[in-house]
């Protein structure tokens, strides 16, 4: 029993943080939102070099995974820096293809996973009846239709998300059928768990960034002759945000250790709510400047809103958590 990150895992987070800080990630986010994927793809390659995508890919397919704890560590940093692109979807696609490989259908895994691990290809995966994220930037567009997995030939026109760096499109019908049968359904539920874990981590990182930026702001912003951060009403909102985020963190790592759907759903619901609560606090405490698109806070605020419902609404995740965590004593 040792429920702490080790020194290597903390150093991995620190190195990603340093890399993303020096890479001027906000500019890449804004370019991505305009449909200019160049800086975002350059960032993608660096993340791949650091091994981020390989964490979701088994060694048999040129990855280092599956390592969900390290993946959670990485995705907190991705969220903290508002990294654009279908990062969650690429991980979900990798989980789906790996699971299919485990279940005997290794053709698509052999063909697609090495490229995902190396960062040469970018995948997106549409949730059932949902939009595919960043289909215009992806080189692999996967769709699960019932018990079939296909490579969509293209996508409908891109629509804007509340987070302008998330670009949404419906996949086109048709395309190559990669696999069919009950193993696709099983692999899709595995993919959902990985998508929710990665989204939870990303949301936690978004929330932590919003908290950090807001704390820094209220320390330097003065009104009535004192920093607004000295007012108790301001302090208490930030304290509540910190509590929400710090209690989402252990749920996230507990879920990464078990990868049980109920644990992952609990982490997703909690991290999503914590991040959005923090976003609302950040917006309020920044005042009008926080409501502008030009100020960088908007990059995280809008992402917090989008991630709250991505890969499962709060209600869906709560229902799944309740079904799985109750009944037996939740005493692992």
């Amino acid at each position, binding site marked *: 029993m*040792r429920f702490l990150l080790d020194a290597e895992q903390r150093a991995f987070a620190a190195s990603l943080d340093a890399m993303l800080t020096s890479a001027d990630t906000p500019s890449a986010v804004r370019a991505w939102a305009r449909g200019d994927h160049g800086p975002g793809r350059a960032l993608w390659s*660096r993340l791949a070099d650091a091994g981020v995508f390989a964490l979701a890919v088994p060694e048999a397919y040129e990855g280092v995974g599956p390592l969900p704890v390290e993946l959670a560590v990485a995705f907190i940093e991705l969220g903290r820096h508002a990294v654009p692109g279908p990062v969650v979807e690429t991980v979900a696609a990798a989980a789906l293809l790996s699971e299919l490989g485990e279940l005997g259908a290794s053709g698509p895994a052999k063909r697609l996973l090495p490229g995902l691990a*190396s960062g040469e290809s970018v995948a997106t995966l549409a949730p059932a009846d949902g939009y595919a994220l960043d289909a215009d930037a992806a080189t692999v567009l996967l769709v699960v239709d019932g018990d079939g997995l296909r490579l969509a030939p293209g996508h409908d026109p891109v629509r804007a998300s509340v987070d302008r760096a998330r670009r949404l499109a419906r996949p086109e019908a048709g395309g190559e059928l990669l696999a069919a049968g009950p193993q696709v359904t099983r692999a899709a539920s595995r993919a959902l768990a990985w998508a929710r874990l990665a989204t939870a981590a990303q949301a936690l990182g978004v929330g932590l960034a919003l908290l950090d930026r807001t704390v820094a702001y209220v320390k330097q912003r003065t009104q009535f002759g004192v920093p607004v951060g000295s007012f108790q009403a301001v302090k208490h909102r930030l304290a509540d945000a910190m509590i929400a985020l710090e209690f989402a963190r252990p749920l996230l790592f507990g879920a990464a250790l078990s990868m049980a759907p109920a644990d992952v759903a609990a982490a997703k619901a909690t991290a999503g709510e914590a991040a959005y609560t923090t976003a609302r606090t950040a917006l309020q405490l920044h005042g009008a400047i926080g409501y502008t698109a030009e100020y960088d806070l908007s990059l995280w605020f809008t992402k917090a809103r989008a991630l709250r419902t991505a890969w499962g609404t709060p209600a869906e995740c709560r229902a799944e958590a309740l079904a799985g965590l109750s009944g037996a004593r939740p005493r692992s």
Partner: protein
Amino acid sequence: MLGKLGVTPKPHAAAAHRSPKPHAEAPEATADPGHTASGAHRRKVPSMDLTRSPADEAFRAEARGWLDTHVPATALPSLETAEGFAAHRAWEAELAADRWSVVSWPTAYGGRDADLVRWLAFEEEYHAVGAPGRVGQNGISLLAPTLFDHGTPEQRERVLPPMATGEVVWAQAWSEPEAGSDLASLTSRAVRADGGWRLSGQKTWSSRAAFADRAFGLFRSEPGLPRPHQGLTYLMFDLSAPGVTVRPIGRLDGKPAFAELFLDEVFVPDEDVIGEPGQGWRVAMSTAGNERGLTLRSPGRFLAAADRLAALWHAHGDPFDSALRDRVADAVIGARAYQLFTYANASRFLEGEGIGPESSLNKVFWSELDIALHETALDLLGAEGELADTEWSEGHVFSLAGPVYAGTNEIQRDIIAERLLGLPKGRR
């Protein structure tokens, strides 16, 4: 879980052949390859792991076995009544007879030397079987850690064994009518006397004092010093000593859960001073932020209540009432979050790190979780939820005090903002 330890994977050529460099150097535009995912693979310390050791499992099984055969089949009368207090005191003696009352204490004082992980396991088992509330809680979780840190061997020998058996039940004497959140402004006096001190003044909101035997608290021994927390002394005294008047106070439901204490020249011998006279604030606070911050309310208590709530939902919940279902789910998830948060803190503590202001996060979280959990149960129960003599109602009344005692949640949020987030001090 973590793949093949010690194997250097070859995920991607770009990362594989670079030589590691110290991570203190900020890398330019690539992540430090010494700490890439492949670096995370080559670990020297045990990695994150929630599995339990066989020895811990054996301890848990032994606790469960004992509890299964000893926990009373029907609930004891309320702890906050004379009859219930006596019954709970007898239960403490039964626990102590088989060394289950203070598992985290050294064996010399009736414990089992259990570390935090085992203490958490014991608490999970204890609450899962619905064992009685602990009438000795104040002494065990607040006074005993102070005695272990600051008491003399003589004090430990004399005070701890009867505390462990419930023979002596302790009340706390901190708050005063004019000193609540601003505790350091307290004015009850300790005046030097031959061989000891004489206490005068008034203490209030003294939990358990209506039926307890002794009390501990802070008194002003040296008035007029520049700062209010200077010149305070930590003392223990008898509630039956001459000069002590105890006036029980009914809480919301009328039960005398706490009391006012009027002290008129109450004699306390020197042997009942903890630490140095005048150093009482430091003595009282030094244990507030560490182990005590972890052990005031154990996760097992909330896990057991959340389990009962989930069972109630499955038995009586309206499946179409998604708002109530969300609240049940939040209670279940919250209890799990508190358990895992505590495991992380326990791991940190076992590696020698102190738990400081982080315990403020804890206190706000569990106190609000407790209320939400019980209110959800009462709402679920409908007409039955209004009845006062149920476990849920009793638990609800108890939970309502949580955000107020042990440092109000407003004080905790100030601590979080100032000491964890680094915000400037301001007017309260």
